[in-house]
């Protein structure tokens, strides 16, 4: 069975909305205190410096105000961090992630089976990690990459096994906890996530993937991903997210740090399908050295509210950034997403392509910042935002910010907003398609420039998710 057939034949409810009994070895309880932090750190057997970093982040979190003064920002008033359970270690026998699916408890295995993870691993991936609640429960990488020195392991394990690297790169220069309130929260309670290290000159030909699943009601997931791509290396990292829907709010506040060294190439792809009771507030950032390339590909389909602006700091000459972002907001969803790029060196280049769709009262917003610093001569940036609106209950906003401090630059921003064309729908109907199929086809065409950039497995997944959104059968 091809992946496409597999996905089409799987019932939606079964794929994303199923719930399992909570299975926890350790749970932190609700809320956030120094005691909670110490419990998490102790449960993980962390070195003292990591506990210190967590406690410092907690202090910053307590000092910083909630962001409330952004024009048109999503409403976070219902988000009560005191009600969130920040840490649940699932009751899995092996303390560290296993590399055998068969070692997993049946219900967890069944979860990832339904999400198509083992299937994807067999077909198209170099390595797979799967996180259930706060901990990575499965991690495997093909031997051929391990032999070349590529590391793909869960972040908690990396703190122990690659302590020097983690100590140098973890929430220091890229995403310090002082960056924003949710980065501080993340720094205090982070758990799980991936550590990826690619040695100099190594090209990891097939993508590595991590899948994050929240199963319990009212929990927060705070996985941390750290990718270090040494000079002239290449890697594609894919992240998938989902959770069943509960009455209480869940919070996902991930942290992603990417170091793209000289001439390296990193692609980071996310397809996010959190349930519609989830607040999705992430901080993702890359530092790109000379001749390096960073590509962010983000599909935001799920969540109640998303605030996500992947950032590239182009630090070396000739560094390049490409952003591709798709947002789809249905009923009750506020998807506020975009991109940030800092051009801090000469001859740096960025492109941002954003497509958003709003429907049934949903709101999308492109919020982006391009900063060209004094001295970043001969840099260029091109931003293109297109938005499609289905009905008069929905909202589509576009809020780009440009700060240009150098004259020998090429800066262009374009945006359009329009409704789905009656004429196009009529034409397709006259060719025998019904109204829904016609609209789906128009949407598929609208996002095609983006899906064609994705590996086929993910293009299929994204199209399928959008079809589900259009059918209104999700959430």
């Amino acid at each position, binding site marked *: 069975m091809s992946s496409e057939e597999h996905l089409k034949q799987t019932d939606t409810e079964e794929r994303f909305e199923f719930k399992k009994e909570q299975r926890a070895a350790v749970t932190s309880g609700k809320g956030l205190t120094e005691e909670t932090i110490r419990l998490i750190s102790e449960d993980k057997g962390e070195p003292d410096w990591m506990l210190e970093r967590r406690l410092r982040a907690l202090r910053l979190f307590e000092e910083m105000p909630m962001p409330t003064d952004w024009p048109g920002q999503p409403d976070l008033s219902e988000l009560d961090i005191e009600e969130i359970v920040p840490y649940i270690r699932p009751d899995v026998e092996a303390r560290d992630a296993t590399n055998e699916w068969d070692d997993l408890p049946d219900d967890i295995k069944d979860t990832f089976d339904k999400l198509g993870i083992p299937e994807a691993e067999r077909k198209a991936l170099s390595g797979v990690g799967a996180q259930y609640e706060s901990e990575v429960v499965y991690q495997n990488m093909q031997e051929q990459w391990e032999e070349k020195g590529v590391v793909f392991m869960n972040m908690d394990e990396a703190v122990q096994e690659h302590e020097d690297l983690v100590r140098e790169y973890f929430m220091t220069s890229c995403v310090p906890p002082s960056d924003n309130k949710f980065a501080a929260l993340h720094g205090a309670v982070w758990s799980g996530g991936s550590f990826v290290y690619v040695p100099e000159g190594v090209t990891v030909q097939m993508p590595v993937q991590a899948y994050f699943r929240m199963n319990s009601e009212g929990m927060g997931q705070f996985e941390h991903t750290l990718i270090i791509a040494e000079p002239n290396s290449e890697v594609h990292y894919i992240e998938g997210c989902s959770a069943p829907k509960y009455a209480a709010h869940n919070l996902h506040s991930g942290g992603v740090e990417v170091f793209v060294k000289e001439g390296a190439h990193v692609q980071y792809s996310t397809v996010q399908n959190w349930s519609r009771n989830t607040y999705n507030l992430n901080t993702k950032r890359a530092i790109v050295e000379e001749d390096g390339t960073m590509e962010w590909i983000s599909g935001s389909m799920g969540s109640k509210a998303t605030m996500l602006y992947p950032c590239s700091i182009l630090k070396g000459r000739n560094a390049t950034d490409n952003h591709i972002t798709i947002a789809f907001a249905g009923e009750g969803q506020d998807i506020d997403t975009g991109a940030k790029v800092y051009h801090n060196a000469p001859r740096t280049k960025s492109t941002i392509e954003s497509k958003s769709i709003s429907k049934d009262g949903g709101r999308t917003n492109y919020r982006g910042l391009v900063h060209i610093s004094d001295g970043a001569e001969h840099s260029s940036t091109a931003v293109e935002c297109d*938005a499609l609106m289905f009905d*008069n209950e929905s909202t589509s906003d576009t*809020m780009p910010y440009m*700060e240009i401090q150098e004259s020998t630059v090429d800066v262009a921003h374009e945006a*359009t907003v329009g409704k789905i064309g009656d004429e196009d729908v009529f034409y397709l109907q006259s060719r025998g398609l019904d109204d829904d199929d016609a609209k789906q086809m128009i949407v598929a065409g609208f996002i095609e420039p983006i899906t064609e950039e994705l590996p086929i497995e993910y293009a299929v997944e994204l199209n399928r998710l959008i079809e589900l959104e259009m059918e209104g059968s999700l959430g």
Partner: protein
Amino acid sequence: MSTQVHATLTEETVRQIADDLDEPEWLTEKRLEALDALDDLGMPHVIRTPGRDWTNLADLDYETLVDPISYAEEKDQVGPDEVEVLAISEALDQREEVVREAFGSVIDPQENYLTALSTALFSTGTVVYVPEGVDAEDVTIRTTMNSRSLFNYTLVVTEESSSVTILERQESGGDVAGDRYYSGVVEIAAGKNTQVQYGSLQDLDQDTYVYTRKHASASRDSRVDWIEANFGGRLTKAGVETDLDGEGTETNILGAFYGIDDQHIDVDARVWHNAENTTADLTTRGVLDDEARSVYEGVQNVGREAWRTNSYQREATLMLSDESEADASPKLIINNHDTEASHSATVGQVDPQDLFYMTSRGVDEDRATDMLVEGFFVPILDAVEVDELREDLTAAIRERLRS
């Protein structure tokens, strides 16, 4: 508020200004209400990005900038016979009901600290009243500011099926050492089926801090066009807005700025589509040289009931110097899907190919750059209907060229 002017600003001061104008009590009441509100009001909105305020108004010390009871100025207020162009005191005498109805109806006097300050302290002003069916051209309002600070108020009211073109110009005069402050508020109440073009050239000296706030409300089938040229001032915060309140209304907002030395020019252009079948076209072109900095915010806001909206926005900034900075944020807020909306913004230098072509024809580089800069403003100049404004604008551009 950290920036208070209470030392010189009291009820007594306000009453003194009111007495000088011999104004009715209702207006003095509005001034005093604005005065009372100052403590609770914030500065006008400025854009903030992580770690940066695009314009810093909070640090301005209005106490040293404002001298409320000295307001020397020269003013020309002229127009054709069929339209009434009145000084504020004349208007309060001859057209009190018109002024009373329209004053503060488009711009809330207490919108922010600076509009309230302007309401409390304005000492000069012009009312342009265009009676029903009248077509009037070339109304001219020229203000020369001879004092430390000046608060100016302009009101335009057009009755049904009339039209008018207006030129407003501000310049500096007098012998005042040190920093100065100019504040100008312009309200336009455009009646049904009327057409207004309001062109403004602000060319105050570079010791002057400038706050201007212009806002029009367009009734059914009317059209309001703005030409908003900001050349002067040390720090300028200028806002121009149109409410498309009636069906079938239209607005064009054309902006031009040219910053040199260490000028800071912050311009906002906003349109609110509040009714069906409305159209907006926003075009701003700016040039920056030396260490000048520009801030542009353009907002196209389409309301839930604004069916069949067309809304376009273009902004282009030309940077002639590496020491200058151009910040821009064109925004779309779309709440009705029956909309065709787009915006674009570009920043760059003079096209090297154009420059090469001209230098290869024997034109030296500075001269060639100047010609390209002049050409850059042509789309704005072409839209100006008042000849005198076009000539003044051209002259102001040429003054800033390099050779």
